[in-house]
């Protein structure tokens, strides 16, 4: 059973990561900095629970806020660049954060053992869950409650004017401005919200793996972050969830029997999925199809 709970945890955290990119992508900004914000959430929350002895919930909120603030600061220079240039700039920024953790050393002695982030060695012994007797099931439930809350908030946003505004900015910035949208506020706000959500994901990730290091937060993770919403479709939040289940549940875990050929098929299947459903797995057509199953007229 633990394997499935473990898988549930991975899917939960990656859904949060994907949703963090979903918000930013809606405004038409392709960001590869999400892994960086994710790592801020991971390191800051772990330092709060391990070094300062906080409970996970406040630690998670503070870490996510920190990630959100940093993301907002990144959002400002990102205002002036678009498209591929923004991709390059956000990669550079993500790497900047990763290398910061690579060089970051801050350790103290607690109950006879030395704990804390230790540069390239990483941050070990993040033991909030085992120390407080949380079982794998408890952790999985905790994660999925948070996933559900984030999805609910974003689903509501999608249906509100704010959601329409994000999409409007993503489609045509000039037209959006001329109908009274403050471009700076929307783009920076989307970055900050995305950073906040990524921070939550990172905080959870740090605590269930119990050991983080800078290599966890590279370009690969950032690529996954935008791959989920792009593959799932930007129409609604469920697309991201479906894409995470498809990639993590089916492609990564389900194809394990293929050995080294897995990665090859992995890429091929994503290409195939994007060709069959160019606007994402959950697009206008598939939504209409599902609706048609439940309504008769």
């Amino acid at each position, binding site marked *: 059973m633990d394997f499935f709970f473990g898988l549930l945890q991975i899917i939960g955290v990656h859904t949060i990561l994907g949703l963090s990119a979903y918000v930013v992508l809606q405004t038409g900004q392709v960001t590869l900095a999400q892994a960086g914000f994710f790592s801020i959430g991971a390191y800051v929350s772990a330092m709060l629970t391990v070094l300062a002895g906080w409970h996970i919930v406040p630690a998670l909120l503070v870490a996510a806020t920190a990630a959100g603030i940093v993301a907002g600061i990144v959002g400002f220079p990102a205002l002036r660049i678009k498209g591929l240039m923004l991709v390059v700039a956000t990669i550079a920024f993500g790497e900047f954060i990763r290398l910061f953790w690579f060089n970051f050393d801050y350790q103290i002695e607690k109950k006879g053992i030395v704990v804390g982030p230790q540069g390239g060695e990483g941050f070990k012994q993040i033991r909030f869950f085992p120390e407080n007797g949380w079982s794998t099931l408890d952790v999985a439930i905790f994660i999925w409650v948070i996933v559900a809350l984030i999805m609910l908030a974003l689903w509501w946003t999608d249906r509100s004017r*704010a959601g*329409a505004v994000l*999409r409007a900015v993503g*489609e045509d910035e000039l037209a*959006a401005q001329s*109908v009274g949208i403050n471009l700076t506020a929307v783009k920076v706000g989307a970055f900050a919200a995305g950073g906040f959500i990524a921070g939550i994901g990172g905080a959870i990730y740090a605590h269930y793996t119990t050991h983080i290091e800078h290599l966890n937060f590279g370009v690969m993770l950032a690529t996954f972050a935008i791959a989920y919403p792009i593959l799932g479709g930007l129409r609604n939040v469920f697309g991201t969830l479906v894409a995470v289940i498809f990639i993590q549940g089916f492609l990564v875990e389900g194809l394990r029997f293929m050995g080294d050929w897995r990665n090859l098929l992995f890429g091929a299947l994503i290409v195939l999925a994007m060709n069959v459903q160019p606007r994402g797995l959950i697009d206008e057509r598939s939504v209409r199809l599902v609706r048609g199953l439940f309504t008769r007229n």
Partner: protein
Amino acid sequence: MPILELTSLSKHFGGVRAVDELDLTVEEGEIFGLIGPNGSGKSTTVNLICGVLPVTSGQVVFEGRDITGRQPHRVLAAGVARTFQNIRLFGYLSVWQNLWVAQNSMEDRRRENFAKRWFFGSGAERDTVDEQLEFAGLIDKRNELAANLSFGEQRRLELARALAARPRLLLLDEPAAGMNLEEVQALDGRLRTLQQAGVTIVLVEHVMELVMGVTDRIAVLNFGRKIAEGLPAAIREDEAVQQAYLGGNVGTMHA
């Protein structure tokens, strides 16, 4: 009383003077025509008023307030809306979402707190969207994606979107481009209705049937400078204008 005053407004792109020392006064309640050959600076003027382009020098005063160099969303909040020469709708939003987004700058909306304005809109908003769709004749297309509308419908939706925030001055950048005669006549009627509703209109246009028929006054631009201003009949006879349009070229003034 003037609603819009441009005083020696200039925009230079490098050595090119797209708009050069332009003085223009639009009175409240009129339909003001802005015409000129291609490249004469009409669209640039609109973009300068709306804050899309930074002004090189000069002033834009709207209702007695200096709005020069304000960001586009703040120009709209002041009461100036515009449409685009080439249609710029939010294609993957539905027709009514296009208006719903644009309503964020309505007086009523701006008085609301942040959460209500952006996240918890009321049913009353939907009614005002429907009213505006009714006026635009698009009510039966309300759930259609804007990208799926026909060309004429898209033009109407763009006009409706510009009106969604209830502006007092409307800048129309070639609203009749690509329209057939019937559609032009419908537009003519719609502009007059708007005028009666108290909206001042600046009409940038090439279609002379529309401009000559509907406007109260006209200014003519050429190479970024105003070469004539006056009543439509006088403009039609003006020698400098005919020179600018007919010039040494083969173009004709389609009047």
